[in-house]
């Protein structure tokens, strides 16, 4: 493996990790606040991607300025995440908070099944792939390796901005502090006057939008087919579990680890590519049952 291949694998890994991190961030945020692992989160990724592709096609067919392509990805994510997040929170998650954890998992699994089929009915089974945005932004040459600007600059910076923005929001704003309070203890936060329902709704909309953003940003470089949501669900869980449930900073590192491991295995041992995330997760959990970065006190399952 020579230097340029290593560089290529690094860039592949980082851009993939950025997407993985966005999805995992949404999942871990929702888990932190609701204490429910939202299995339907993978569907938000898929819906975000499909909807972004639909908007992309609309921009071309309506002959709108192509510069709208990139902002359209974000618009798609916010619409889908806000909409589906709100529906899921209001009709399902809010109503199962006190139920048996088994039933909670199953309800989100049922929501996942419903969303998968709806997605199939809306967008069909043919692969959808709209890559105009990548072409517009052009390529960049780093030490003799040509790479798309979109994957090298846009994706990692969005991930970093999302990470820093969320940290700032949770630590510095009044609303963010309320979210943190609910994460620590829902009942006590309610007793202190926090509007828990509003916080949970906000979390679902925000977490959902992050999942959908992952999908929307993946849509220019990935062809979307049925089943992609199921795949992303387990991958993002692998990231979250490796890091420790509810660990935001840890999720960034875990996403990088899994992203890089995957991209290097593509060049070194292609058979292991799909296996890599799970092998890492299994290896980490066998040694540290609660994930790499969690402390016993923060985990209350």
């Amino acid at each position, binding site marked *: 493996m020579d230097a340029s291949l290593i560089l290529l694998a690094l860039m592949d890994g980082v851009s993939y990790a950025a997407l993985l991190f966005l999805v995992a961030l949404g999942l871990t945020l929702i888990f932190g606040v609701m204490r429910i692992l939202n299995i339907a989160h993978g569907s938000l990724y898929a819906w975000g991607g499909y909807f972004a592709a639909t908007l992309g096609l609309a921009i071309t067919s309506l002959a709108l300025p192509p510069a709208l392509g990139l902002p359209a990805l974000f618009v798609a994510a916010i619409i889908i995440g806000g909409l589906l997040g709100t529906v899921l929170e209001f009709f399902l998650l809010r109503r199962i908070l006190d139920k048996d954890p088994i039933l909670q*998992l199953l309800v989100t699994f049922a929501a996942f099944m419903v969303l998968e089929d709806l997605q199939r009915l809306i967008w069909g089974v043919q692969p959808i792939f709209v890559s105009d945005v990548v072409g517009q932004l052009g390529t960049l040459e780093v030490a003799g390796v040509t790479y798309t600007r979109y994957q090298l600059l846009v994706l990692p910076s969005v991930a970093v901005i999302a990470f820093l923005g969320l940290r700032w929001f949770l630590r510095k704003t009044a609303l963010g502090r309320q979210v943190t309070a609910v994460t620590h203890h829902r009942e006590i936060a309610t007793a202190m006057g926090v509007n828990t329902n509003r916080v949970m709704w906000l979390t679902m909309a925000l977490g959902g939008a992050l999942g959908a953003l992952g999908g929307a940003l993946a849509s220019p470089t990935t062809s979307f087919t049925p089943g992609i949501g199921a795949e992303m669900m387990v991958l993002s869980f692998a990231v979250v579990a490796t890091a420790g449930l509810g660990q935001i900073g840890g999720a960034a590192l875990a996403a990088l680890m899994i992203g890089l491991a995957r991209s290097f295995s593509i060049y070194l041992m292609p058979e292991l590519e799909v*296996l890599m995330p799970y092998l890492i997760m*299994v290896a980490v959990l066998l040694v540290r049952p609660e994930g790499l970065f969690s402390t016993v006190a923060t985990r209350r399952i």
Partner: protein
Amino acid sequence: MPSMRLAVVVAVLVAAVLGVTLWVPWLKTPVLIALADGLAVTGVIVLIRAGQVSFGHAMYACLAGYGVAFIGRALHLDALLLIALGTVAAALAGAVIGMFMVRYRGIFFGMLNLAFSMVLFSVLGKFGAVTGGTDGLRFDRPSFAGVHLEREGFEIALLALALGLAVIAGWAVQYYFRTVDGQALAAIKTNETRLEYLGISAKRVFWRAYTLSAGLCGLGGSIFALTQGLVTPEMGYWVRSGEVVFIAVLGGSAHAIGAFIGAFVFSFVKLYAAALLTAWQLVLGLVLIVMVFVAPTGIFGLIEKRLRAKPAAGHGGTP
């Protein structure tokens, strides 16, 4: 529930299944698949007793299925032997993986199982030279108890066997729940620390239950593989595992019979929803959501309530 009345319900159900299948021949395959699912679900019900759900137990059905296919292709053994070997293979795998799994509870238990099942799923899909890749492995219909049967006869024989195994497995699981080990298993859900204070190792109790559940899933997987004559990695996909847990909750996880009630309802909703709407997941997902809110104890929970409420009335449950 009074055991006499339950025995009557089971007898009625078995007779109904046999009668309907002999009456309508094309129902044989869906009924066989429902029975195979039901057997796997009894395995999941064992774990639910301990308050744990696995989102990866389809891997044991898948392992057993591939075991049946490999051995069937290489050695052309008898169907009965293949089922036994598949089940043992799954139980052995469960015993080994279980040694790690018993340390985890809750979401981590469910999802670590999922991770293991995804490793298996990916390996089966990737190493196509050995496993046939995503197309899976096809194998010839084996002899049944030493007799070579045509498809029709083979399915009837397999169906009778599966029904018998379903009754035995259901009874055995219920018997197990009443033993000391089974009671200790239920205590893992209610208070694991107290169990340890009694001098019983929760991990060992759970390990035995895990092995049993893997074996039951393997039994279901072996019968499924023989019904189809084909195994694919899809058998072990995590969504499949989720469906198995779903069936357990749909049918009612308080009793092994719930597994089979759930499996039949699931199969037939799937069959009809797929034929009418092509969107069977949508229908089943909505059914599950409604069930969780209206009847969290499952269909068997509803039947049980009826039986309890009206002791004089007959048995209210046919599939």
